[in-house]
């Protein structure tokens, strides 16, 4: 198996075949690259546009004046074998084939071209990623395949995607929610290297603390299971399986075969190896937030700290549905609350309705958090930050919001119990976004609804169950 180390830590990158018609998307996306970026383009009409970007163009990989670690190949499919040959001859660290039109077309010519490319890469021990993929996104090194992807920031989530779109969406929407990739690999048809290889790499990658994966299928199931087991032994792995085809498409003669859908089998594998499974992009991002920013709860006892009383019943329901208890607090806690808690329009049962108490004196939030921290009935906290009532006020008086953030951040420092916040955007999306970004800056987990927080925290709690 070719070594991925060089291509995933490149110092020199070459884009082959970028063109005006695509707005020079590769060179523009890669202008943030921290190393040296070159272009290879033979078409005379395209070269001036490339040079205008300030990028030196060459007529072949052999002319590049230094060792090449990473090649992005964006040529038409008929040309791809020549570029792959050039990559092998010039001993490049690896290549991603953005080029499509291979086996995924289902036609003979595409399959034949893919076989040719595969054989060349195999013989040359070339780390070929793809074809039919978006390739690599490494924010720390400014490596991108989309100009909106982050650059110059160090992330901690390794993401593997069989689909370029889902990979891109995760990198963009994730970043908007404070989840940044360490390395993202979109691997398309996965002919030389597939999910199992990238899983093993990310499992050993010191920059990667968590692994996410979007996958539809594999050429070698048992090998993927082994790689999953290995990766899970090193760090949390969250999988998102696309393609819920029914096994019923095959002729079956038993109940067992008729019930064994792709999805059922995948869920079984996830349980056996101790990974997590999600069904959507939003859920993937939510679970990554919970993994990154909240400690695993040591038990099911949840304290819900809300800003209104009216919703306490459904809040309790939302958490109960995901397996959490919302228990009564200890007598000791109630005794302490009775001394200062404002019960006119408020309550300290659990869920707590604490808006009035906090607005009387901001220090009361610290007191409330401390009492709950000491309460043995409680293992985790979810704190509502009500955009409905507060977002406009925070926008006008940012120091009040900062005070709140300080309280939460300092609680996180001193407590073993996980704390997440809930900020529903309500009717004030712009102000709520401002508040959310501030929470993210302080690395405080923030979810858009109680339901999503309950689900993500429950997923993370199953991880510690498996490891018991």
């Amino acid at each position, binding site marked *: 198996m070719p070594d991925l180390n060089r291509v995933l830590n490149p110092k020199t990158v070459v884009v082959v075949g970028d063109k005006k018609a695509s707005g020079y998307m590769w060179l523009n996306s890669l202008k943030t690259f921290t190393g040296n970026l070159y272009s290879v383009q033979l078409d005379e009409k395209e070269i001036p546009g490339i040079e205008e970007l300030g990028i030196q163009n060459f007529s072949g990989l052999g002319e590049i004046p230094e060792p090449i670690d990473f090649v992005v190949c964006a040529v038409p499919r008929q040309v791809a074998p020549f570029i792959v040959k050039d990559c092998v001859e010039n001993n490049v660290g690896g290549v991603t084939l953005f080029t499509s039109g291979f086996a995924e077309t289902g036609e003979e010519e595409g399959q034949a071209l893919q076989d040719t490319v595969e054989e060349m890469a195999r013989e040359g021990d070339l780390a070929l990623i793809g074809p039919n993929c978006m390739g690599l996104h490494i924010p720390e090194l400014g490596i991108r395949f989309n100009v909106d992807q982050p650059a110059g920031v160090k992330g901690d989530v390794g993401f593997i995607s069989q689909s370029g779109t889902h990979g891109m969406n995760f990198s963009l929407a994730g970043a908007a929610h404070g989840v940044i990739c360490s390395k993202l690999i979109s691997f398309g048809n996965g002919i030389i290297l597939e999910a199992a290889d990238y899983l093993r790499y990310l499992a050993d990658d010191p920059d990667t603390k968590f692994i996410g994966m979007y996958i539809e299928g594999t050429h070698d199931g048992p090998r993927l299971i082994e790689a999953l087991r290995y990766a899970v032994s090193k760090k949390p792995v969250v999988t998102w399986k696309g393609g819920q085809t029914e096994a019923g498409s095959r002729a079956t003669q038993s109940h*067992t075969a008729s019930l*064994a859908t792709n999805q059922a089998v995948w869920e079984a594998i996830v349980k056996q190896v101790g990974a997590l499974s999600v069904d959507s992009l939003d859920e993937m991002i939510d679970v990554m937030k919970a993994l990154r920013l909240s400690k695993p709860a040591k038990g099911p006892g949840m304290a819900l700290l809300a800003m209104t009383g009216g919703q306490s019943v459904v809040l309790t329901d939302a958490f109960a549905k995901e397996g959490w208890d919302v228990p009564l607090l200890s007598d000791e806690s109630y005794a302490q609350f009775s001394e200062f808690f404002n019960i006119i329009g408020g309550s300290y049962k659990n869920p707590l309705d604490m808006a009035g108490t906090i607005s009387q004196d901001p220090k009361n939030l610290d007191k409330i958090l401390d009492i709950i921290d000491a309460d043995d009935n409680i293992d985790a906290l979810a704190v509502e930050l009500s955009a409905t009532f507060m977002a406009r006020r925070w926008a006008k008086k940012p120091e009040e919001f900062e005070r709140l953030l300080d309280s939460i951040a300092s609680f996180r420092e001193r407590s073993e119990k996980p704390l997440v916040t809930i900020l529903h955007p309500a009717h004030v999306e712009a102000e709520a976004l401002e508040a959310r970004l501030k929470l993210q800056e302080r690395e405080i987990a923030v979810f858009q609804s109680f339901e999503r927080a309950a689900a993500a925290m429950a997923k993370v709690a199953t991880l510690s169950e498996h490891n018991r």
Partner: protein
Amino acid sequence: MSHAIIDAARSGGRSLLSEVEAKAVLADAGIPVTSTKLAANVDEAVGLADDFGYPVALKIVSDAITHKSDIGGVELGLSDADAVRAAFDRIQAAGKGAAPDAVIDGVSVQPMAASGTEVIMGMTKDPQFGPVLMFGLGGVLVEVLKDVAFRVVPLEPRDANQMVRDIKGFPVLEGYRGAPAADLGALESILMKLSEFAAANPEVSELDLNPIFAYDDGAIAVDARIVLSDQS
């Protein structure tokens, strides 16, 4: 090393084992099944029933008939020799009526197992991940509710343990409304043996044990189906 019965079926060009064959193969793998034997004629049927002790069940044995009970090919709870004789004749007639050209090998004879909590276990081959085991509550509800759990072969004891507890109907196995609890250890042990069986017999492509009766002490499969892969 595959089983002689499997080899014989394959060399005969058959992909579905009879219930008698399937149970023999499974019994050799250490999986508890009700002992079941083939009777080619009515006297053999009575002789086997006398040996097993009454009550017994008779089922039609014919390659051409897969859904035995749908055509009247199954008679349960036969309490003496006369009942066996009458049932044998009815089954023969039903088989000929349903499939006039079919070769009917005879009937299978087996003792009636005491009824217990019905569960289903099975195996199928996933095209990407290979053999997969299934566990669920049995009977007709398995098809409607699809309350089943899967694990990929090979299973570890922890997988078998989780599998029986994964289904929504698990409280039924724990003993519901005073019914005795099912012997979960016995069920887990069958799953482990099925995992070994699936790994050792790659030519088996599908398998159903449906139902298995689970008791407060032990469990036994009372019907079994084994499908072999197409020969290549």
